[in-house]
């Protein structure tokens, strides 16, 4: 029996660390990873809530499908995968022209 | 059964499996050298012991005793981590593989599977995503190869590991998709369930064809896809780009020596075993086989394990046989083969199978 808030706090901490990474890291790839970290944090709270609703669903409440929390995780993963594919391709393309992975040097927002 | 006996049984099973597995690996190397030798019209190892049967032991001792040298300019931590990762991941995947149904020793019935346990009601409860765990673990195993190549800071290694990771990522798709047909037919992800769903005979049009109810027959295409993809996953000929001796000295483990190299070596063979086990579990009915009534009770109890071992042996032999027979692909051909042939074929297989399953309700 773990309080739900623990999971939420964990997810919040991971998310904040991801944001910090995004803010402080220079390497595009690392920044990308911080994004993935944030997504994972969100996933965690999704799954936690899915389990939570499974046990705490108020009687007569039918609008909430507890399991949908886990299904959302799939969609998040799909988006993450697509994002990773395209993003890494972009990174490679940028690297080809700019010869650097430092976002501070890639601030023209173009190849 | 209570927790204590459970833990004891688990420990015993783990020790047993690891021992058997490592011995099996060792003697697979021996078998391989023998068979290859015969194929190439040589003798293979003969010196150490009768028929060179002690050769693996000697190799092991050599590996352990040789100096474990650590080159300069390598990324130390990762350099050390990589082989461990590879071996551990390959071993973990054994944990979910059932070798047989159950066995009762001194009144304690336990499942012939590390991750399997008997609930108090006597029902066997398997971890019900075993197949996915195997896939996940093997996909983690890629890191071992990749990091080895990266950390050992040498162009051959890097190229080898690049090839390896690209190849593994590519063929994982086909591998996973080739198994979907099985899942559709068995309706479960638990390996034990899959094996159970292959008991009995095929019933065609109401009357019993005495063909065993194995999934190889409906899933012949899936089987071949699985086999090819699995060979690529394990970096075996004809897909052994990563360690192509003739091109990249030894691929990703060029810089490795002694025990670390041995770890990679063992990891590869354990992976071969895993593949063989999976193939026999998913397509060849696992431990199912003809009942031999004349055997003593203990023999009766171990018979399924025997059948299973035979099937696994067959696949190991097939590995060796193919290695002795086929040449190596070219890298671009390999990729093209994976993406442009295997993947579409697997998808078509899934579609057709799902239609058939839906049609038969």
């Amino acid at each position: 029996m773990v309080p739900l808030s623990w999971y939420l706090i964990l997810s919040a901490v991971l998310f904040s660390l991801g944001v910090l990474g995004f803010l402080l890291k220079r390497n595009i790839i690392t920044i990308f990873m911080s994004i993935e970290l944030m997504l994972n944090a969100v996933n965690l709270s999704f799954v936690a809530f899915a389990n939570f609703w499974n046990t705490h669903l108020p009687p007569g409440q039918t609008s909430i499908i507890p399991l949908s929390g886990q299904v959302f995780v799939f969609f998040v993963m799909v988006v993450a995968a697509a994002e990773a594919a395209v993003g890494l391709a972009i990174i490679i393309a940028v690297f080809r022209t700019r010869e650097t992975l430092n976002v501070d040097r890639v601030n023209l927002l173009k190849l | 059964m209570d927790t204590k006996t459970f833990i004891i049984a688990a420990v015993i099973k783990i020790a047993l499996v690891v021992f058997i597995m490592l011995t099996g690996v060792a003697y697979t190397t021996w078998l391989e050298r023998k068979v290859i030798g015969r194929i190439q019209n040589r003798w293979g190892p003969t010196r150490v012991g009768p028929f060179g049967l002690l050769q693996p032991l000697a190799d092991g001792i050599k590996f352990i005793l040789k100096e474990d040298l650590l080159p300069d300019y390598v990324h130390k931590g990762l350099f050390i981590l990589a082989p461990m990762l590879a071996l551990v991941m390959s071993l973990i995947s054994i944990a979910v593989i059932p070798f047989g149904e159950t066995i009762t020793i001194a009144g304690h019935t336990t499942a012939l599977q590390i991750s399997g346990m008997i609930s108090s009601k006597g029902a066997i409860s398997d971890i019900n995503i075993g197949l996915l765990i195997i896939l996940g673990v093997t996909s983690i195993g890629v890191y071992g190869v990749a990091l080895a190549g990266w950390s050992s800071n040498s162009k051959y290694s890097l190229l080898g590991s690049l090839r390896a990771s690209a190849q593994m990522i590519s063929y994982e798709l086909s591998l996973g998709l080739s198994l979907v047909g099985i899942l559709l037919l068995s309706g479960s992800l638990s390996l034990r369930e899959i094996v159970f769903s292959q008991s009995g005979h095929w019933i065609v049009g109401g009357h019993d064809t005495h063909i065993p109810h194995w999934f190889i027959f409906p899933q012949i295409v899936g089987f071949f896809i699985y086999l090819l993809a699995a060979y690529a996953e394990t970096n075996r000929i004809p897909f052994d780009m990563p360690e192509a001796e003739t091109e990249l000295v030894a691929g990703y483990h060029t810089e490795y020596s002694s025990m670390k190299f041995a770890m990679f070596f063992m990891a590869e063979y354990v992976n071969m075993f895993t593949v063989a086990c999976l193939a026999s579990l998913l397509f060849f009915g696992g431990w199912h086989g003809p009942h031999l009534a004349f055997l003593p009770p203990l023999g009766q109890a171990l018979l399924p394990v025997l059948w299973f071992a035979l099937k696994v042996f067959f696949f190991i032999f097939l590995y060796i046989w193919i290695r002795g027979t086929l040449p190596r692909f070219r890298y671009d051909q390999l990729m093209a083969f994976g993406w442009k042939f295997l993947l579409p074929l697997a998808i078509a297989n899934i579609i057709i199978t799902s239609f058939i399953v839906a049609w038969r309700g």
Partner: protein
Amino acid sequence: MIIHQVLFIVFGFICVAGAVNLLVQRHPINSALSLVVVMASLALIYLLLGAEFVAAIQVIVYAGAIMVLFVFVIMLLNAGAEERTRGSSVALFVGVPGMIVLAGTVGWLLVHSGGQLGGVTISSSSFGETHQIARLLFKDFLLPFEITSVLILIAIMGAVVLGKREN
């Protein structure tokens, strides 16, 4: 069920440690590996939550595919340790305080009034079973599912086009 809490604390600690390591490491590949650690332990936490299928998918897709892709790219571009440039003072003097406020508020809220929420347990093993998820995914969420498949297709094509060299 104390062991549950213990496991959670252990894996949660590993998660946070990995995430922090992702920040402090200067070499991208170390960051990538620590992220893999985070994901793996997250998968175990999912198991604690009884979401075994999600856990497996987490391992396969995230740790096994996406992160391998990252590592692959890092190796391909042979990215070195990141250089310390004075890029955006905005990020430092606006973003970090904002983020801290954000995290602080959320944390304060959860610590202060999170107890009012109930707790989660390892529920009946039938929950989160693959069948249910599949039914949900292919019945109730069919349209989003198909749309995401289209999204994936587009992503693949985009990656191919981007990866193609000019000339």
